[in-house]
């Protein structure tokens, strides 16, 4: 059988199996497990978007929390009913266009992504002329500026009070549908020649320019597409938690996403997917280390934040002992899988 057709059939099959599993999970698993499955999908979207910017185009960006905040706020403001908004904004009256907007959920997520991409564009134009660490610091600063703007634009965002009671629309199927859309777009993009150009910029910027690549233009493009999907991820995350406030979107959030990307492998899509699943589950199961426990007869009180200490150590170990992460730049593909099976058979 033609391997292209075979792979396409297998993809359809895989999606069907995933759909059935999600359908089953929605009806049979408890709320906590469903929440974890939801988080895996959202984290995967976020990791993929950062991987595009950092792993595939080589731009060290620490601005993800900012784009997520924009996505989450735009989406929340779109799906809340005008009445809800009028009641919740107690510090200052909610300002006009925001006060009347009321859109379907899918549109709110898309709007969140588009606005995040627009902010990405505004940031990209001055900042992407910088390289390496400077870019990281500048994007970190911009993310913080976005957060401060949200705190202070009280008539639009309800300031530091945040937004509560966001009507929850993001079921398992919805979240995974968005993940599939993200995956589809990014795989199509990265497998096209434009994807090759992104990787060329990552490998050797000077050679890329000599080969006729408008490096700045493509960096802006990659950054904005990454911001777009980060906005979508933020919108889904906000909807999943039903509560958002500016304190959520600090550097720690960026750090979480960065950790998933680095652990999965910079420049590997399947790596990001795998590590989203692994790290999300680990982060949840590690909640145990924050509980009070008794050690050799001593009662140790719970230490909040202990999880992050453990995770920082894990990240440190990855950087020290396995810098390329789980997958490096490799991918798990059907072809590779079949080759592997073949070799096992002949061995």
């Amino acid at each position: 059988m033609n391997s292209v057709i075979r792979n396409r059939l297998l993809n359809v099959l895989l999606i069907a199996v995933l759909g059935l599993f999600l359908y089953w999970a929605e009806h049979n698993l408890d709320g906590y497990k469903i929440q974890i499955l939801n988080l895996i999908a959202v984290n995967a979207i976020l990791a993929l978007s950062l991987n595009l910017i950092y792993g595939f185009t080589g731009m060290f960006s620490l601005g993800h929390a900012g784009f997520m905040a924009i996505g989450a706020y735009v989406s929340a403001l779109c799906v809340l009913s005008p009445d809800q908004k009028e009641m919740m904004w107690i510090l200052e009256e909610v300002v006009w266009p925001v006060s009347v907007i009321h859109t379907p959920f899918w549109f709110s997520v898309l709007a969140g992504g588009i606005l995040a991409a627009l902010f990405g564009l505004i940031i990209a134009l001055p900042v992407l002329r910088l390289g390496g660490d400077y870019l990281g610091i500048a994007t970190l600063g911009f993310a913080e500026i976005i957060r401060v703007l949200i705190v202070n634009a009280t008539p639009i965002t309800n300031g530091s009070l945040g937004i509560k009671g966001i009507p929850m629309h993001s079921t398992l199927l919805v979240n995974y549908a968005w993940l599939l859309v993200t995956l589809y777009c990014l795989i199509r993009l990265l497998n096209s020649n434009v994807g090759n150009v992104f990787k060329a910029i990552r490998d050797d910027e000077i050679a890329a320019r000599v080969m006729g690549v408008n490096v700045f233009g493509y960096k802006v493009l990659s950054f904005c597409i990454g911001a777009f999907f980060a906005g979508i991820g933020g919108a889904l995350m906000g909807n999943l938690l039903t509560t958002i406030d500016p304190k959520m979107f600090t550097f720690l959030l960026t750090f979480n996403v960065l950790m998933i990307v680095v652990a999965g492998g910079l420049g590997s899509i399947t790596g990001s997917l795998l590590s989203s699943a692994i790290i999300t589950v680990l982060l949840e199961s590690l909640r145990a280390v924050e509980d009070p426990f008794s050690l050799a007869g001593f009662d140790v009180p719970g230490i909040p934040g202990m999880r992050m200490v453990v995770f920082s150590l894990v990240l440190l170990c990855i950087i020290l002992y396995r810098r390329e992460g789980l997958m490096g730049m490799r991918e798990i593909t059907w072809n590779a899988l079949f080759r592997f099976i073949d070799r096992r058979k002949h061995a």
Partner: protein
Amino acid sequence: MSTSPLLALDSVTMRFGGVVAVDNLSLHVPAGSVTGLIGPNGAGKTTVFNVITGFYTPQAGNVRFRGETITGRQPHLICKAGIARTFQNIRLFGNETALQNVMIGCHVRQKSAWWMPVLCLPQAAREERAIAEKSLELLKRLDLMIYAGEKASSLPYGAQRRLEIARALATDPSLLVLDEPAAGMNPQESQALMHFIERLRTEFNLTILLIEHDMKVVMGVCDHIWVLEYGKLIADGDAQAIRNNPKVIEAYLGGEDLNSHA
């Protein structure tokens, strides 16, 4: 062969702080020729290439390509105009396969926009296929077919040099500038390189400008040679004239004995 210059430098001066790397240099490269640029270490040859390809804007003077001034134009636009180059120390896209490297070279002539393949537009798919075919064809013509799926950084040295040329050819240049293509090659390999350069000129209808330290290659393949020392032009002419030029012999004294390779 026409004699109107494809590329011309008019009184180009390039300074780095106090160092005058290129000093009031004028030279021209006739269309269809293989032209050499030689000179001792640090003479400013690579700097001339960087000025031509837009990496440096000279403090004075002009670069003209097909009669048009291209001084200070961005490197990617100069590539689009039809000048492609290789580097003195190879700069491939190391994590990508040989095929991908050449496909990246094709990108400068690509018409479909980035979002077209995402939306599966048939014209974009057709163009992507054409690019892959063209790239494979180039690999075949440069004897690199066996490496098509290999990571560029894992290729043997000679193959990496050829791949860099294949990638440059993928941009459909009319002028190819080669910075020391024979560096690190043994005599047999540089012999093969000479034939290869001849082949490039005829098969791809190219004009070639090359920097080279290997005098055998330079004398064997160049129609015309320009000699640089301390950024200044000290001589130009065909191989015979250069070999017997006292200034050139002086510049190379203690270095390479030009006549030994005659």
